[in-house]
């Protein structure tokens, strides 16, 4: 482990991952009660990716996210009370209840939005990176996208455009093996999604997306290069989702016992804990303390969300234009 993360950072990494996990496990439970409307896609299992990447970013940096956006939001510092309220459709939500799970955004934090359109993020992040280039502020853009999204024309075009314009972009491919019910083995004819980078003259690398440190290091290198004007990188993180494609998915396309097995063998939080405790970097207690803090925070977020008011009828008509 070549990484030189100090204790604060290690605790932060753990806290972020735990927050994502707890947030998602809780949304899963609450969704089942029928209180949460719409389509909800959970990020549980993929925590190391968002966390390992976003720890290199500051507020000047931008990320573009996907339909499975809660983890990216949390890792980029979006307020979890506002997120939870948004998922409940409440007026206090990040988007005033108008967006919901699929559209949580906080541009002030550099989070340019979850997105209901597969492959919509990569073009947008090219623009964010272009803006950074014009501003000369060393900012970078990260587009997260799935294995399924890696087949969308918009994604390919963006890989190319980012090379043509030499943009400071990290393409973060989250290969969780599935696009809805369809396996990556069907959709992607190469062993790795990162194999596509070479066709654009771009560095491409694949890491174990359940290993926070592997993601952290590879992302760090790519982001450093991007900031220095060295252009984009395609980083594929192989990971797993612990829930269905969306809440309500019976997952009959998955192998029997698959998720249980993954939760045992490939849990990013467990792997992290083992790594840091075995090396004496963090203690189990330190993490247990975080666990209960996180749990309390999520409890509070849910309670606040449930108690929060709905948008008013007048809200229906506002926020379409700045001026019309």
């Amino acid at each position, binding site marked *: 482990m070549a990484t030189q993360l100090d204790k604060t950072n290690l605790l932060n990494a753990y806290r972020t991952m735990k927050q994502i996990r707890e947030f998602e496990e809780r949304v899963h439970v609450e969704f089942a009660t029928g209180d949460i409307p719409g*389509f909800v896609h959970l990020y549980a299992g993929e925590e190391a990716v968002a966390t390992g990447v976003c720890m290199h970013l500051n507020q000047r940096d931008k990320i573009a996210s996907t339909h499975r956006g809660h983890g990216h939001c949390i890792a980029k510092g979006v307020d979890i009370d506002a997120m939870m309220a948004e998922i409940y459709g409440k007026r206090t939500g990040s988007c005033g209840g*108008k967006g919901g799970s699929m559209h949580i955004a906080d541009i002030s934090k550099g989070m340019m939005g979850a997105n209901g359109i597969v492959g919509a993020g990569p073009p947008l992040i090219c623009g964010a990176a272009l803006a950074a280039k014009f501003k000369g502020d060393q900012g970078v853009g990260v587009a997260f996208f799935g294995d399924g999204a890696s087949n969308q024309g918009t994604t390919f075009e963006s890989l190319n455009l980012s090379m043509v314009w030499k943009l400071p972009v990290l393409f973060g491919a989250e290969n969780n093996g599935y696009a809805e019910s369809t396996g990556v083995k069907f959709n992607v004819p190469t062993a790795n999604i990162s194999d596509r980078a070479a066709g654009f003259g771009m560095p491409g690398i694949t890491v174990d997306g359940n290993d926070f440190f592997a993601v952290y290091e590879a992302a760090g290198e790519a982001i450093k290069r991007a900031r220095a004007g060295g252009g984009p990188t395609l980083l594929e993180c192989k990971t797993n989702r612990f829930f269905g494609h969306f809440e309500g998915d019976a997952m009959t396309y998955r192998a029997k016992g698959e998720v249980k097995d993954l939760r045992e063998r490939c849990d990013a939080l467990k792997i992290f804990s083992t790594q840091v405790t075995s090396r004496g970097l963090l203690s189990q207690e330190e993490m247990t303390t975080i666990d209960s803090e996180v749990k309390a925070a999520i409890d509070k977020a849910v309670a606040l969300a449930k108690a929060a008011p709905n948008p008013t009828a007048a809200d229906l008509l506002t926020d379409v234009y700045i001026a019309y």
Partner: protein
Amino acid sequence: MARKLSFKDAINEAIAQEMERDQSVIVMGEDNVGGAGSPGEMDAWGGVLGVTKGLYPKFGERVMDTPISESAFIGAAIGAASCGMRPIAELMFVDFMGVCFDQIYNQAAKFRYMFGGKAETPVVIRTMIGGGFRAAAQHSQCLYPIFTHIPGLKCVIPSGPYEAKGLLIQAIRDNDPVIFFEHKAMYALKAEVPEEPYALPFGEAKLLRSGEQVTIVAFGLMVQRALQAAEALANNGIDCEVVDPRTTSPLDETTILQSVAKTGRLVVVDEAYPRCGMAADISALVAQKGFESLQAPVIMVTPPHVPPPFNGALEDLYMPDSARIEAAVQSIVK
């Protein structure tokens, strides 16, 4: 014909019967089988809401999963159609048209004209429309006015299971490109549907209720709401005629104009955006060709010029409901 079928099952049955009848009918779409390349069961999904489930066990390779590459596979469906197949491609939500629209309006729609009448493109594109799912702005749109705008496309909006089966069979047999819009909030709706295959002709509106005072033209899910409103209005002594055009292109102008000639009043109810939308289209038709019989302003009942909101209370306000339809009717009969 006492058998009842859901809207979803009616669609599934139409496809299955046509696939049995005609080997050139094939099905493709994201997760239309469900499970390709995955370790578990095949036919796991049958499309995101299960409409094509059960076709793969019956028809094997003629039902295909696709990568998330709408331009490529919708384009492939169109290309295959011009080479003698009759593909039924699923564009999961119509909201996704933006990544593949070129293949639909510049290719499929125009081949015949651009090539001087020498092309046939018997493709069907099935796609989900509409609100009520709390699915927010990118999964709740109607957008069929955009397709209706394009010469060369046929546009079908079934308002119930009976229409769904008959219109889809016609769509599959039709030799022009057809876009088939399925309102996702209707999938569970049941009604009597004949078991044997039948085709409902395009360009023939259905008169769902006869009335003397006001013509209500409504599309898709709004047909139900128009009928509810008409019922309520009848209890208040207001007698409405309800017309379901069933296809927006071709459009049965005659039935609409005849109805307005009788009633002298028109309310158009549509869930699509109002500007350059279906409600405007029908209103303009009547303002031009039925003006002499019009005795009152045409009223359009649509959502506001606003994207669909996520919050349920807002979405309910957003979508036209029977109360708004009633109010619209009352505003022109009083």
